[in-house]
């Protein structure tokens, strides 16, 4: 019974947050150094939906930070250079914020999705996507979260957010997504 009420509350909270956050999240989804034209409206709302799933946990004082569009925690996608798995300097603050949040909320478990652009073979890109997800996990663990909180999965080049065959689209597709439950 308590569980049902809790679930109900969670649903309502999540719904409210989805409505409340959608506009602001769009700004946050735009990567720092890549123009936003490559993403269609549908794709953007998809990203928003994925990003919004992180809400409603309700635990601890940090929960509001997770939902705050002005917090670095609202950035849930980090981008990589070509054929690289290094965390770029412009995302260090974002990674630090997530690591700190996870350290303060040890019961929270996230999934990191690694992605690659379409250049190169699908299977090799699956491996490259995994390297990106693992590089991000390593960094999060170094900065305070525990490995057990972080599941990784690679989708390789199978789930592009931008469909173009140009450097701008490729830059948007070489990414790791941080997905809260």
């Amino acid at each position, binding site marked *: 019974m308590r569980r049902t009420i809790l679930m109900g509350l969670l649903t309502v909270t999540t719904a409210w947050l989805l409505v409340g956050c959608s506009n602001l999240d769009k700004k946050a989804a735009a990567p720092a150094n890549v123009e936003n034209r490559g993403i269609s409206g549908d794709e953007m709302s998809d990203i928003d939906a994925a990003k919004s799933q992180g809400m409603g946990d309700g635990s601890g004082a940090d929960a509001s930070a997770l939902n705050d569009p002005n917090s670095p925690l609202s950035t849930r996608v980090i981008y990589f250079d070509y054929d690289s798995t290094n965390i770029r300097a412009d995302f260090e603050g974002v990674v630090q914020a997530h690591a700190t949040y996870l350290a303060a909320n040890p019961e929270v478990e996230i999934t990191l999705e690694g992605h690659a652009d379409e250049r190169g*073979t699908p*299977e090799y890109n699956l491996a490259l996507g995994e390297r990106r997800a693992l590089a991000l996990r390593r960094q999060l663990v170094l900065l305070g979260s525990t490995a057990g909180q972080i599941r990784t999965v690679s989708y390789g080049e199978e*789930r592009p957010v931008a469909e173009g065959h140009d450097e701008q689209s490729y830059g948007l597709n070489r990414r790791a997504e941080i997905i809260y439950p």
Partner: protein
Amino acid sequence: MTRCLWIFSVVLAVMLGPQAQAVGGTPLEIRITQGVESALPIAVVPFQWAGAPLPEDIAQIISNDLTRSGRFKSMPRADLPSQPTDVMQINFKDWRIVGMDNLVIGQITATSDGGFIVEFRLIDIFTGKQIAGFQIPSHSSNLRLTAHHISDIIFENLLGTKGAFSTRVAYVTVDRKGPKDSTYRLQIADADGYNAKTILESRHPVLSPAWSPDGNQLAYVSFEDRNSAIYLQDVRTGERQKVVFGEGINSSPAFSPDGRKLAVTRSREGNPDIYVVDLASKEQQRLTTDSAIDTEAAWSPDGQTIVFTSDRGGSPQIYRVSPAGGPQQRVTFNAGEYNARASFSPDGKRLVMVTGGSGFRIAVFDLDGGRSEVITQASLDESPSFAPNGSMIIYATMGGRGTELAATSIDGTVKQRLALQNGQVREPAWGPFRK
């Protein structure tokens, strides 16, 4: 001859049974984009048939098959000087005048059980002799396959190489609405793009289809359980099982030539390595332990060697290892900065692979000479595989409407495109000869 006919009948009777399935899906549209000058002239005359119109035009299918191979120049039907259906009706002089080397004629007769007997003769115009002649039992749902079998026989008799017209191709289509809203379909079609059938439809990525040597099963990777896992599916019954799964990547399946094992990629130990899975015992043997990416295993036709892609030297290159394990040797060196996804030619003498530098193209690598030749010119060519007779290579390429399939002769002189009306089509795998 009688014995030959009998064997053919048994084989076809077996194929007619469990494989007869409803035909669905849009055919792939095939365009020949490049042909050769030296193609052999041949004329395929409409087959005689006295009944109501048939669902398929057998002579036209044969004619198209032969032209598509790039090795033949079929005479357009409107140009045929006459339309004989029996040897007695052939006026050899007329055919010599129009420069024909060979002629194909035939007759179709109905059987008492509702089927057909398709009889054809391949005639050498210069000697006036019959090169080959068969009577093949068929059925209305199987007439296309019968036509492809006839093309195979013609091809083999005139060129000395087994034809691959009656083979099939597996591929994945993607209908993308958004990054997380796409429909993936694993399909099988005849080598001419017809009879496309969806054997798996999913909202999660599907990739890397691989045929079993007997053509009865496909191994592939599906993300339906929120991670990559390898499935085996019987292409006739649809029955499927999840065979390799667990933490990390589970992908890149390749059947051993005896069909008993799968070489796969797993990253459960932290980075992708090659494993060999025994399909009966489910035992797994790890072949590589390098901390680099090791993936895309492929078996040699004799089962003695596995080649794979590794970036242990800094960039992706092809390496080889025994399926029993042991030392690994690098195969490709200066052939390009990026060499990946190799697979063997049916004679085991060559590899076809993706080679990258400024773009990604298909290259054929000669294992004896150690040289590679780039045979395509587009910028995002990938997923090459040999036809089972070694005459053509199918691969994925970027077309005007997205990813399409293309086929090329191994010297790159003949090219064709296989496109879908809508959506993308990728990761082709050319199936084995149909037994």
